[in-house]
């Protein structure tokens, strides 16, 4: 191993060498640290919300304080954790390695994206310090443009800024995937993780500008009194919702598509089999990205949108279930008769599939006009989107962390602790959010912190689950942190997985490949020679 060049971690030890790096792997580590920080801030706000909901009177927070706490939780978790987490950490680290490239197409633009992300984050933290905002993360007009006492313009500026980081990252990924694939890696030989990031990047580039413009319009109306969304000035509040959800529904796919890519890799590696129906799984990512643009109106079924429009959006929303279903069925078929290893990444993948299916099926229920009218703006909706966005995306994020940790840092971690964490997260998550389906069905509205006493038992269950979940989310800090200083070194391919990233040493050298590899076979060419596995 002595002939290998030094790893990217050893390529420089000064702070300057990290803050001015253009190495995609180091930038991924910078993102890992920053999204973890925002995850903790957003998680603390969630803890505050759940603690307040322990009693029907909402004794902990004032009405205003509660609104600010859940808004902060939503804004931070959506824009500073869920959207950037998998693409910016694992996409950044893995896409060049997986396609046999030395870096992303625009390394300096990649670093700039991180600085823009941090600038947006700084704005959000300033808002936090000066008192927060009370509009909910959706900034609905006319509340946000006319009545809110919070710092709407400052938060809109934060989200506007962080949007540019997303656009630039998406652009970088698209160009990299088009231009820098190793010889022999045609579109039919790309790992599914890369396919899913390609689909995600298309959404990032095409949808994010719509959000940016919408936020500028909000700021313009609030600051200068322009009549864009205010009916008394000739504007239309529903127009805001159209524009907002044209971005924000595809944003759900920005969160979950990379997660779907992660799960394809984890399932294949755990089963030691090629992914069943590779081209369908790859194509379904693109189909989800495209159809995902046409479903935004299902957020507006009861807001005064016409029934014709609602019927069109209801139909289109049901259509997006087809490519999502293809993925789940194909993963199941991949696992069938697989030589399965019950390692932490596999347990997280199973957790993802379970939570994603519950979230997806309740999504179908919500896409039906009649059911949506009954449960609209209740805890049923809260439970549904947490199953998809939090249960799904965070399971996949932790799965990815446990799968590629040895590759990123060259150390194995105690697998038993990983298994315990996966199981605790799954249990804690269901205890937190399943009662919320029942709460919503019984009529408990979302965003209220004073509620009828008969809902208390379910709220207490939910808060107990969130305590367990919070504890489980903190566990990896201990054993992954421990692994960095005291664990045994990882081999190049500890899981016996396929893919170019496993052919380089762990951690990879600065320029990834000494010689650009030539790809000759199809992806997921299992079984792998076990000689190199752990």
């Amino acid at each position, binding site marked *: 191993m002595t002939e290998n060049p030094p790893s990217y971690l050893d390529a420089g030890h000064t702070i300057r060498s990290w803050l001015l790096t253009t190495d995609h792997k180091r930038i991924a580590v910078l993102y890992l640290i920053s999204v973890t920080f925002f995850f903790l801030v957003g998680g603390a706000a969630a803890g505050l919300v759940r603690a307040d909901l322990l009693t029907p009177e909402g004794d902990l927070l004032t009405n205003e304080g509660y609104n600010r706490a859940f808004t902060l939780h939503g804004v931070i978790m959506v824009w500073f954790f869920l959207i950037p987490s998998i693409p910016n950490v694992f996409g950044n680290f893995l896409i060049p390695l997986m396609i046999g490239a030395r870096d992303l197409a625009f390394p300096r633009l990649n670093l700039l994206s991180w600085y823009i992300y941090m600038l947006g984050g700084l704005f959000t933290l300033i808002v936090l310090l000066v008192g927060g905002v009370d509009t909910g993360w959706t900034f609905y007009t006319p509340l946000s443009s006319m009545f809110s006492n919070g710092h709407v313009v400052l938060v809109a500026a934060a989200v506007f800024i962080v949007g540019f980081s997303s656009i630039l990252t998406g652009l970088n990924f698209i160009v990299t995937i088009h231009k820098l694939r190793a010889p022999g890696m045609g579109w039919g030989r790309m790992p599914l993780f890369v396919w899913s990031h390609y689909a995600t990047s*298309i959404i990032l580039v095409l949808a994010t500008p719509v959000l940016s413009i919408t936020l500028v319009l909000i700021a313009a109306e609030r600051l200068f009194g322009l009549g864009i969304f205010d009916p008394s000035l000739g504007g239309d509040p529903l127009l805001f919702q159209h524009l907002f959800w044209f971005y924000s529904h595809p944003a759900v796919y920005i969160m979950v598509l990379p997660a779907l890519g992660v799960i394809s890799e984890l399932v294949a590696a755990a089963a030691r089999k090629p992914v069943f129906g590779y081209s369908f799984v790859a194509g379904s990512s693109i189909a989800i990205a495209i159809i995902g643009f046409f479903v935004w109106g299902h957020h507006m079924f009861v807001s005064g949108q016409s029934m014709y429009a609602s019927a069109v959006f209801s139909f289109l929303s049901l259509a997006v279930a087809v490519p999502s279903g293809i993925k789940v069925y194909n993963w199941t078929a991949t696992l069938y008769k697989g030589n399965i290893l019950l390692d932490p990444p596999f347990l997280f993948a199973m957790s993802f599939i379970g939570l994603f299916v519950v979230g997806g099926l309740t999504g179908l229920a919500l896409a039906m006009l009649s059911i949506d009218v009954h449960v609209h703006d209740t805890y049923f909706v809260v439970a549904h989107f947490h199953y998809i966005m939090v249960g799904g995306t965070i399971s996949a994020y932790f799965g990815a962390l446990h799968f590629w940790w040895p590759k990123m840092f060259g150390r194995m971690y105690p697998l038993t602790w990983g298994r315990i964490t996966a199981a605790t997260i799954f249990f804690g998550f269901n205890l937190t959010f399943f009662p919320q389906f029942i709460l919503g069905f019984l009529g408990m509205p979302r965003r209220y912190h004073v509620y009828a006493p008969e809902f208390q038992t379910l709220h207490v269950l939910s808060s107990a689950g969130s305590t367990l979940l919070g504890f489980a989310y903190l566990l990896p800090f201990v054993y992954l942190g421990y692994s960095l200083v005291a664990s045994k070194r990882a081999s190049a391919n500890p899981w016996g997985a396929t893919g170019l990233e496993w052919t380089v040493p762990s951690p990879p050298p600065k320029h990834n490949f000494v010689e650009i590899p030539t790809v000759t076979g199809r992806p997921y060419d299992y079984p792998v020679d076990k000689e190199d596995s752990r």
Partner: protein
Amino acid sequence: MRQYLQTSVIWLFLALLLGLTVLASHVLTGPVSLFTGLFIAALKAGLVLWFFMGMRHETPMIRLFGTGALFWLAALLLLTFVDYLSRGAV
């Protein structure tokens, strides 16, 4: 030199189309006026894309992405109009 000439011709043509838009808005009435205006606007956008934005020199892949962006914009406007135009009907 040839490039300047071509750019000038396209610019003049765009100015002519602008004049046509103004004329049509005075002469025509009702939906015909609206659709004529939209048609001329689409023609102008096409000319800008093809010549000024250099789409005619690009690879099919870039053209596909350019068309994709237009398609997305069209979807946004069309589905929003489905709501707006049918709001009074139900």
